[in-house]
């Protein structure tokens, strides 16, 4: 298009102004942007304030965990799983450990399964609290992050009491737990269940009917149910669009089939519905933990001591020659699961966390694939962002609930 720039006509300058406004502006957001929850870089094409193109670029935190998995023995890889999603490390442990147990054909004792469920739900709570705090902080509610991290400390204290670590816990072992449960731990968990509902009421009083929060989240980032399925979303992103898929209900692992809980569903599929779904999930977490504590057998083993796939208990290693030999072989050679391939997935706080292991019968996995939920969920960002306003991008990134360590692996 050519323009006559002579100052005599008014219309031409008007037309030129419109043409200039139509020009796309490419804006680079991240990778150090504070509201991208890590090192996500998003290229945005803007027309005025409207987004016409969106291209998320990931990989800034790529550490090659799958390649590392092909060089470590099965038991050595558990600490690496902590590093994928570092705000919910016990859930990552759980997914990996269950996959290896399925490959080996073993199952942890009942009491260990109940404790696994408790730790998994506590770490779901910890993850949701980080999500709520940072998501609200992105949209402008600073105080939410202070409140959420205050309650998260209670959860992390429980982890610390059990295994000494707060973030990268490495608490679960193949075949159960190798550490004893401290006698004061059930009391700490019960205290948390007692304290938390009042705290959650505080959050909801601050947010759920807040006009600013409603204006920023309602009708923003709508995902249609068909699109949610096509994009492979799982977790709260899928349930926010009204699709009932929770692995704990659909294909129960551990002992979730003995627990009575509900799966919250959204109706509109917008940011606000996903917020409501996750808030309700936090309430269900308390319900699940309470039932676990009530149903749990008072005494019993925490680890399989009979199986060759599991490290023998310390006491028998020190007292019996046979277990000392088993321990030596377990440490030096590792154990060899049968040849085959398994895929096992659990309901992570962000969606479906799947591990796919191909075993060639050696102590090292032939191929170890980590299917993280947020990597797949993040694909929907361009779908939500195109046509939205620039100011909504932080709300859209926050609502997917990503952790870049888990996206990039």
């Amino acid at each position: 298009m050519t323009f006559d720039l002579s100052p005599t006509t008014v219309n031409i300058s008007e037309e030129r102004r419109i043409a200039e406004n139509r020009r796309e502006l490419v804006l680079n957001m991240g990778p150090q942007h504070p509201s991208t929850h890590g090192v996500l870089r998003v290229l945005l094409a803007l027309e005025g304030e409207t987004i016409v193109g969106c291209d998320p670029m990931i990989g800034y935190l790529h550490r090659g965990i799958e390649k590392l998995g092909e060089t470590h023995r099965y038991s050595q890889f558990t600490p690496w799983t902590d590093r994928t999603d570092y705000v919910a490390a016990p859930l990552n442990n759980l997914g990996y450990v269950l996959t290896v147990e399925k490959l080996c054909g073993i199952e942890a004792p009942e009491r260990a399964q109940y404790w696994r469920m408790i730790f998994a739900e506590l770490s779901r709570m910890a993850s949701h609290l980080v999500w709520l705090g940072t998501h609200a902080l992105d949209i402008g509610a600073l105080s939410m992050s202070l409140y959420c991290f205050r309650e998260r400390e209670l959860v992390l204290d429980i982890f610390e009491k059990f295994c000494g670590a707060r973030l990268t816990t490495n608490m679960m072992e193949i075949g159960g737990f190798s550490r004893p449960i401290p006698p004061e731990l059930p009391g700490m968990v019960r205290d948390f269940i007692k304290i938390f509902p009042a705290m959650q009421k505080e959050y909801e009083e601050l947010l759920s009917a807040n006009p600013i929060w409603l204006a920023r989240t309602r009708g923003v980032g709508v995902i249609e149910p068909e699109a949610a399925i096509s994009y492979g979303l799982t977790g709260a992103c899928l349930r926010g669009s009204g699709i009932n898929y929770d692995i704990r209900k659909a294909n129960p692992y551990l002992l979730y089939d003995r627990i009575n809980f509900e799966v919250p569903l959204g109706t509109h599929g917008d940011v606000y519905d996903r917020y409501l779904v996750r808030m309700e999930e936090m309430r269900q977490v308390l319900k699940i933990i309470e039932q676990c504590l009530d149903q749990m057998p008072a005494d019993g083993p925490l680890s399989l001591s009979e199986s060759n796939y599991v490290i023998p208990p310390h006491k028998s290693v020190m007292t019996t020659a046979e277990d000392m030999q088993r321990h030596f072989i377990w440490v030096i050679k590792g154990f060899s699961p049968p040849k085959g391939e398994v895929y096992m997935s659990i309901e992570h706080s962000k969606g479906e966390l799947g591990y796919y292991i191909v075993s060639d019968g050696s102590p090292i996995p032939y191929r170890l694939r980590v299917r993280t939920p947020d990597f797949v969920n993040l694909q929907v960002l361009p779908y939500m962002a195109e046509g939205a306003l620039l100011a909504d991008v932080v709300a859209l990134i926050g609502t997917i609930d990503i952790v870049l360590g888990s996206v990039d692996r």
Partner: protein
Amino acid sequence: MSESGRTADTAGSATADPWRKGYWGPTNPDEHPAVLAIRERFPHAYIDAVNFRDEMTVRVERDSLREVAEYLRDAPDLRYTLLNDVTVVDMLQLRDDPRFDVVVQLYSIRYRVRLRLKAGVNDGQTVPSLVPVFAAANWLEREAYDMFGITFEGHPSLRRILLAEDWDEGHPLRKDYPLRGFREYIQPGFENPAPRVPSRLRRQARP
């Protein structure tokens, strides 16, 4: 401890078969509805069906991977609508031909059943992209291309995703790629490291 206790597969388990909960459908391939449907609809594409740990794996010809996936998605009695994972296994150390396996994990939300599709592919051959069928395949196939160098035909923008765009050292998850890469990594600013000199301080031997 008895000898049988050491090698027993289900030693000490609370229930005998924890995952037998209708997770992957019938264990016999001749009874599995998806396997039967693929056999009937795509006799030229079906190769075999393997069951391990109750998980059903159907191997198909790579050329018809997209048609099979589309059929599984749309068939009213199957409805494998959710694409969970697309990944690749490099079978270099296990067999000669074909070298790679493209592995597709499907899930049926309505019937709560999983299924795994596999298609063998050699280096230099292409696989039909699943993006027209499932939007979720976009990044998963980009990752497979990035890590293994498998080309997916019909993918809208097949470029690297996790590694840098100008990565020139091949595809790191292949089995012939060394763990530390082909080149020695030198930290920027440390191109000329200081020479190592023996310390004057001798470390005391531990008593």
